[in-house]
């Protein structure tokens, strides 16, 4: 099973584990198909709350742990071009909007993607997700129309299905399931609870748990009708 060819793919997310659950199978599949993939991760998830009780990390040691996890996830996916952009978790919406647009534009100029994967503005819950999505929407809208990459957007707020309907793009990522499990496991400080639950459900043969190892879903985001131009 293959997914449609792209020249180059640029993934932009704010947190080190944002790619793991919904996109790592797609990233791995593109890489297997020989498509260059760049993953720009804006922060190191410095404000992550899963520190354990008893705690395994502190506010100050967490970024280094998550940096290693992010690199391990990239390794699991076979991703060579991982870029850590040096912003701080939970502050992206307070950065200058034009600075954020420029950051995205610089990435686009460098990578020349035919496809960008990011969050869907107003449907991605976390303030950093929303700010990232707005910056991508604005940067792409401001490009000459014929040069604009497509945007596949991840949406998961409670209103998603009601407002946006069913996802437009469904990738069969079955052949990358090992890579996807590897990416999930790499972010163990954040995904431990989720993984424990999942692996139990997998062991019980529950179909829904199998599902995310088979399919990843995206909405096509159109900057022409976006609020963020």
């Amino acid at each position, binding site marked *: 099973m293959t997914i449609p060819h792209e020249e180059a793919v640029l993934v932009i997310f704010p947190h080190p584990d944002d790619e793991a659950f919904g996109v790592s199978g797609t990233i791995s599949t593109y890489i297997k198909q020989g498509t260059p993939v760049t993953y720009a991760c804006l922060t190191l998830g410095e404000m992550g*709350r*899963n*520190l354990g*009780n008893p*705690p395994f990390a*502190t506010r*100050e040691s967490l970024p280094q742990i998550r940096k290693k996890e992010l690199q391990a996830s990239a390794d699991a996916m076979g991703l060579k071009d991982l870029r850590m952009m040096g912003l701080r978790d939970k502050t992206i919406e307070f950065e200058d909007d034009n600075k954020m647009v420029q950051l995205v534009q610089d990435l686009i100029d460098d990578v020349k993607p035919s496809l960008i994967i990011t969050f869907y503005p107003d449907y991605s819950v976390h303030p950093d997700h929303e700010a990232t999505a707005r910056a991508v929407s604005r940067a792409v809208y401001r490009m000459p129309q014929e040069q604009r990459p497509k945007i596949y957007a991840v949406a998961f707020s409670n209103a998603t299905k009601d407002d946006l309907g069913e996802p437009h793009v469904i990738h069969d990522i079955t052949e990358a399931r090992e890579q996807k499990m590897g990416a999930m496991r790499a972010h163990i400080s954040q995904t431990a609870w989720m993984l424990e639950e999942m692996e139990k459900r997998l062991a019980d043969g529950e179909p829904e748990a199998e599902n995310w190892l088979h399919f990843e879903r995206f909405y096509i985001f159109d900057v022409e009708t976006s609020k963020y131009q």
Partner: protein
Amino acid sequence: METVQVATLQQHLDRFAGEDVFIHLETTNGAYANHFNEEVFNAGAFIRNVQLRYELAKVVGDSPHRVGLKLPNGWVYAQGITHFEIDEHDRLLMAGHDFSGKLAVALQISRTPFAY
């Protein structure tokens, strides 16, 4: 980090009294609180690398503890502190972790600025 021992933590708090120090103070119920439960009112506050000097510090109560700093013209306090450590840079890191292991509050004191 270790579980707060009041006498030990008090000694460390006393060490920084009367000096210019940098503070990290954070409370949070998580960016997803309202996503998982629409009844939850999402609130929190965050300051980092604000410099101040306190004249008196106290750790009070049974766990989770309260920690208060008295300034010449005001106060800083945190509620819900369960753990602390002195890290390799001689910074006093205090935090409150809830029953599921999520950080709910942090108060940190350092003579040098915390990273960005």
